[in-house]
């Protein structure tokens, strides 16, 4: 079987699996899987760019995804009335001061001769700066957070909440993630393998900690809910006689038609994003640029000696890959309609994406996309599978036996168990991933 045929078949199988959900459960369920599958595929693409192309072990995906989510809030939510007057400007002023202070420190450092005196002055400036900053920052924060804390209590955003304008949040999410990645890359890319991994993991945790605790920014753990979306609301459609009529014409009830319609719209938007990114990644991979990246991945020392600026290239690809994760993060928050920092867990947002990349086949863009769909499908669908498994096992047992009760009780935990089993099976039969690098 030629690779192309095999790959097409793999995609067809995943499509079939999702279609099965459509037939056996509902097309709404199938489309939910498709939509999250598309987002997962984009994340996997970003990670594959970093790992598969350049060998950067980034385990901070969660942080970039969360930053994308933040962008969705800052772009889409309306500004909280009075928040800026109350303390917003003070907060921005405090940031301004911080920037000036840092520049001052850098300036002084450059002007003074090295030695104990310089160290003391720099340290003194930093400490004093920190306290002044806190003195400016804290009251601002306090007054912003005091504005109706149960439902606002934060600055709010730019209020792009009209139709497709909402999608502006996606590239902005990419930019946020890219900016963060640039800073991280500048400092941490000197690290190797697992050291880089734990560093990025730590940074992701720090990003989440900020999102959880800086209520003035995005309400912290109180969550931002009811975010604008690019598609119409189902209720609106259901109340629109024209839509209901057309749905009826096609043989759907209003509820069915509206829910499917909205999901299809999302799917279309996400698909466009995925296709653009996939096209860009494919082109880049199959070009001298891709060759250079592979060379760097193979042997940094030699690539450096052959005139390739390894550090710059690493930074470039780190920023790009992270930006893609940021875009996906913003898309996901738009789809969820809410930002809930507490849900950002490494297992779900970092390691699951890694599983997608590896199972799909690292170094291969199509592999990453396939992995994204497949693993997401499993993540959602193994629960019924686990239950089914348990029922199968217990079918022979007497009703009311404690063991049977215990087994059924444990069914929910079988989700992870089954997930693990499937993962091991896939990797057993295809250790380099389903669509390996050529």
């Amino acid at each position: 079987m030629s690779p192309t045929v095999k790959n097409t078949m793999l995609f067809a199988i995943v499509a079939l699996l999702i279609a099965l959900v459509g037939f056996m459960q509902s097309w709404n369920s199938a489309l939910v899987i498709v939509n999250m599958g598309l987002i997962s595929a984009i994340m996997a693409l970003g990670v594959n760019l970093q790992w598969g192309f350049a060998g950067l072990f980034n385990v901070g995906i969660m942080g970039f995804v969360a930053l994308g989510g933040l962008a969705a809030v800052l772009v889409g939510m309306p500004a909280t009335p009075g928040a800026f007057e109350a303390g917003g400007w003070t907060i921005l002023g405090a940031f301004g001061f911080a920037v000036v202070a840092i520049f001052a420190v850098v300036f002084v450092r450059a002007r003074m001769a090295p030695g104990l005196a310089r160290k003391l002055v720099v340290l003194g400036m930093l400490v004093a700066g920190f306290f002044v900053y806190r003195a400016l920052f804290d009251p601002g924060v306090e007054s912003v957070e005091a504005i109706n804390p149960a439902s606002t209590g934060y600055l709010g955003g730019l209020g792009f909440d009209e139709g497709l304008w909402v999608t502006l949040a996606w590239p902005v999410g990419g930019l946020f993630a890219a900016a963060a990645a640039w800073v991280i890359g500048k400092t941490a890319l000197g690290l190797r393998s697992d050291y880089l991994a734990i560093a990025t993991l730590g940074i992701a945790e720090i990003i989440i900690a900020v999102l959880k605790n800086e209520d003035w920014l995005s309400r912290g753990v109180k969550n931002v809910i009811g975010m604008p979306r690019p598609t119409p609301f189902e209720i609106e459609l259901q109340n629109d006689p024209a839509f209901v009529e057309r749905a009826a014409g096609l043989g759907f009830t209003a509820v069915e038609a509206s829910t499917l319609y909205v999901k299809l719209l999302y799917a279309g938007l996400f698909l466009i994003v995925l296709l653009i990114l996939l096209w860009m990644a494919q082109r880049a991979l199959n070009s001298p640029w891709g060759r250079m990246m592979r060379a760097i991945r193979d042997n940094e020392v030699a690539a450096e000696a052959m005139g390739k600026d390894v550090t710059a290239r690493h930074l470039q690809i780190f920023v790009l890959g992270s930006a893609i994760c940021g875009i996906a993060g913003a898309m996901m928050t738009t789809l969820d309609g809410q930002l809930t920092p507490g849900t950002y867990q490494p297992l779900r947002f970092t390691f699951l994406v890694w599983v997608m990349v590896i199972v799909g086949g690292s170094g291969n863009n199509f592999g990453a996309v396939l992995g994204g769909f497949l693993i997401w499908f499993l993540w959602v669908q193994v629960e019924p599978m686990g239950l089914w498994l348990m029922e199968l096992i217990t079918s022979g047992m007497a009703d009311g036996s404690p063991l049977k009760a215990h087994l059924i009780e444990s069914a929910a935990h079988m989700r992870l168990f089954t997930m693990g089993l499937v993962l091991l099976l896939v990797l057993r039969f295809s250790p380099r991933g389903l669509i390996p690098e050529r």
Partner: protein
Amino acid sequence: MSSDPYSDRGNKDLSLGNPKGMGTATPVTSGGRAAPAPGGPFLIGEAMTGGYGSGPDILHECTIAVDRGEIAVIVGPNGAGKSTGMKAVFGMLNLRAGHVRLDGEDITALSPQDRVAKGMGFVPQTSNIFTSMTVEENLEMGAFIRTDDIRPTMQQIYDLFPILRDKRWQAAGELSGGQRQQVAVGRALMTQPKVLMLDEPTAGVSPIVMDELFDRIIEVARTGIPILMVEQNARQALEIADKGYVLVQGRNAYTGTGKELLADPEVRKSFLGG
């Protein structure tokens, strides 16, 4: 940048699947049974045919043999299959045809591990030292299967390669190219094998050390231990060789005593650099 310019694991990242220490050959798996096969030289790889994994055959009915007390040298162009032949003899390659016999015993089905236990010692051409371990530990690992006192042998190695004594507590990965080569040979000598196989032991060592090394090899051989080696310093090597093989494209092209091969103008011109 890397603080270790010798690091041959490019992207110093194991996760990248650097194949270091992970050859692509599929070795013979454990559990084969050795069967006696009478007669013949002490070690012989006979009519070996095989290649890497499922790739094309590299060796074609290639025969290499060495007897007690002898030095056999394999020469040939780059990529001729010399190292492959050595690996085949050592069981690091699945042969499609041919046999390997040691002391009259057919060991074709034995794993490399079992061959070590049978007293075969081997210095591969590349990645032939434990880079993260000290020089002394490298030597100790060479003597891993020995149960007797290894200190005298170690002293001999240090006498042979004095520089290693100075560097005994240093990680072998931090040594210079030639020093690493000395460690590699030292490690093999520590084994006190019944037969010694060396893949380009003199690559990168200075003339004075090369002389020492050849001297030592002669000494070892004259104690009765057969030595099979691949060499690109072919003229020096053939001068001390009892037997020489010229391999070309995985086939025996010329075979003879060292002197004969040295004297053959065709061989000189094509393989020994004139």
